[in-house]
């Protein structure tokens, strides 16, 4: 038994060595094919946010390039990380040791931080548009990780701003007990305190808790004017639902610090109306977004894209364009190109990737419409304000990323 294992390992090692030599010999495009790996929550509580939609979005970018870059074919592969960091890191390792060039999508901050470490170790690219935690471009930043679309700083502060301005000075947080929730709470707290507000307390809840009423009761007892929901997906949905059931929204204001259009769709406008939604993308923003989103929806059984889906499309597209511009798929050359480019497509206007890996672009504050304002399915948001990229995201002066020399 032991001998077969050793033999197997030796054979695998030889094979790997052989393929990498072959890959290097091949020239401009390693392995003769550009492989894009969509590593996502395909079946769990975040799968409506990223999931299959991300695979479709990546494929749309590939199709837009005509399925080829520098004469080499482009392939999209996908896998389920099951919201488990160890599974995600394992899959990333397997992919990067094989011929996958880049990982895109990837909801869940815990998994994303693990994957970004593998990317750094293997010198392959990881462009994340699904996770929220600002750790990806701060403590855990590295040259091979790019954080696209949004983060907890941008959604947290953008949502908090109008609430604090209209008098919501005291806050209590309901926080998902892992990297993302804590990051969202921390980023929002800092903003609230800087604006003269006060954080009265917080309660940590387990990921995908089934009942939120008791956490909300604690929030209610705190007497805070605003209850900040530092969670996402199903957890946010259940929190909002329970809050309206317990009549908490009559005296206290609810701030969903990260809410996706899929969450609003699931809640229904009756429960969600009036909530602020900070997002980097909304399907009904302009003609470009509408056109792209309708093409997406046609492939997804009528479901409109989330901002994560849009980010996956845009990041894949620009990765391929950067290969074209660099004339190679060598990760270092591609990253250099990406950071020089100005990103423009159907979903992103004037985006820039900074040295810390943060992609900054225009951000939007929307408010959820009331049932009478909505004209039909998926007509959920009205625009409140547009925030320029340099204000929406954490400024480089506050960066904790070692790549940034101060």
């Amino acid at each position: 038994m032991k001998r077969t294992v050793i033999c197997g390992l030796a054979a695998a090692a030889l094979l790997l060595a052989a393929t990498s030599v072959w890959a290097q010999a091949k020239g401009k495009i390693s392995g003769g094919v550009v492989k894009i790996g969509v590593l996502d929550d395909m079946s769990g509580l975040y799968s409506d946010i990223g999931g299959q939609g991300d695979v479709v979005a990546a494929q749309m970018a590939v199709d837009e390039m005509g399925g080829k870059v520098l004469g080499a074919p482009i392939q999209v592969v996908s896998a389920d990380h099951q919201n488990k960091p160890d599974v995600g890191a394992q899959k990333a390792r397997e992919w990067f040791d094989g011929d996958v060039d880049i990982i895109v999508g990837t909801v869940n901050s815990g998994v994303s931080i693990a994957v970004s470490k593998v990317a750094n170790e293997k010198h392959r690219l990881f462009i994340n548009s699904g996770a929220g935690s600002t750790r990806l471009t701060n403590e855990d930043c590295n040259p091979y990780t790019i954080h696209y679309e949004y983060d907890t700083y941008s959604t947290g502060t953008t949502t908090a701003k109008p609430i604090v301005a209209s008098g919501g000075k005291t806050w209590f947080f309901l926080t998902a007990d892992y990297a993302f929730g804590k990051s969202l709470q921390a980023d929002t707290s800092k903003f609230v305190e800087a604006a003269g507000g006060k954080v009265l307390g917080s309660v940590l809840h387990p990921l995908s808790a089934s009942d939120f009423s008791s956490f909300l009761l604690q929030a209610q007892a705190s007497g805070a004017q605003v209850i900040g929901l530092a969670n996402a997906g199903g957890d946010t949905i259940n929190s909002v639902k329970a809050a309206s059931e317990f009549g908490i929204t009559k005296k206290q204001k609810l701030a969903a610090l990260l809410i996706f259009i899929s969450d609003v769709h699931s809640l229904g406008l009756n429960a969600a109306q009036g909530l602020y939604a900070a997002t980097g993308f909304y399907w009904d923003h302009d003609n470009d977004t509408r056109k792209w989103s309708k093409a997406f929806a046609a492939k997804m059984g009528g479901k409109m894209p989330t901002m994560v889906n849009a980010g996956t499309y845009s990041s894949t597209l620009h990765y391929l364009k950067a290969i074209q511009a660099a004339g190679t798929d060598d990760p270092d050359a591609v990253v250099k190109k990406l950071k020089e480019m100005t990103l423009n497509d159907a979903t992103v206007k004037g985006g820039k990737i900074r040295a810390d890996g943060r992609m900054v672009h225009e951000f939007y504050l929307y408010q959820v419409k009331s049932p009478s304002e909505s004209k039909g399915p998926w007509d959920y948001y009205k625009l409140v304000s547009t925030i320029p990229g340099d204000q929406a995201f954490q400024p480089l002066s506050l960066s904790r990323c070692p790549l940034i020399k101060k």
Partner: protein
Amino acid sequence: MSEIFGVPIAALFGQLVLGLVNGCFYAMLSLGLAIIFGMLNIINFAHGAFYMMGAVFTWFLLNTWNIGWWWSLLLAPLAVGIFGIFVERVFLKRLYKVDPLYGLLLTFGLALVIEGLFRYKYGVSGLPYGIPEVFQGALNLGFMFLPKYRGIVVLATLVVCFTTWFVIERTQLGAYLRAGTENPPLVQAFGINVPVMITLTYAIGVALAGLAGVLAAPTLQVSPLMGSNLIIVVFAVVVIGGMGSILGSILTGLGLGLIEGLTKVFYSQASNTVVFMIMALVLLVRPAGLFGREK
């Protein structure tokens, strides 16, 4: 004295009431499991999937045929029960003579398939379902506002649990049932159709899960994952209460809901593990569970 360990008494009562509401769902689900295990010796891992089916069916009735919550109370458990009959007749009846482990594997696989199909059809974000109009609003209990609907859930659960317990432990029919599982050939010799009785028992067990699903639809998110989020806790409840003990599963379900509620006040991070810590402790001290009998 208005505080206990720094927590206001009013808040504590509030949490206990909420714990009781959650305990009701545990009780009703573990009751079904206990009946099925007690009578059929099947560890029904698909129970969470049946619960989810009940909730999704409730949503489906409203959105397709505009059939409201009251009718769903009857129709959804019925539909789930009929599906249960199908499962029992086609799959489970072949497994009575082999190790219970096979039943567990089969139902576990079945749960994965059912959940996968629903996920494929409906996604995971969940489907909106409002609270029935008569139960909107809240009752002022002095120390908290209890939404009327949650109060109804507690009442309904108590009625259902008591009725089930009464039928099985105190009526002629229940006596047949218990005898039928103890010694099928003998009971059959008295002219009682044991296989049909067993099928119906399974159907009623899963119909209870469907009913819990209907009750859950207005308060929790109706989603294909709702069953798997809950079922592990429910199994812990059954183990703590004693496999197959009907009264045990009811009392343990309610009790654990209360304990979980308290944990959420004092150390919320532990609220999803406290049940399992208790399970480990109980297994150390009383391996057959609190209300179980050693066989």
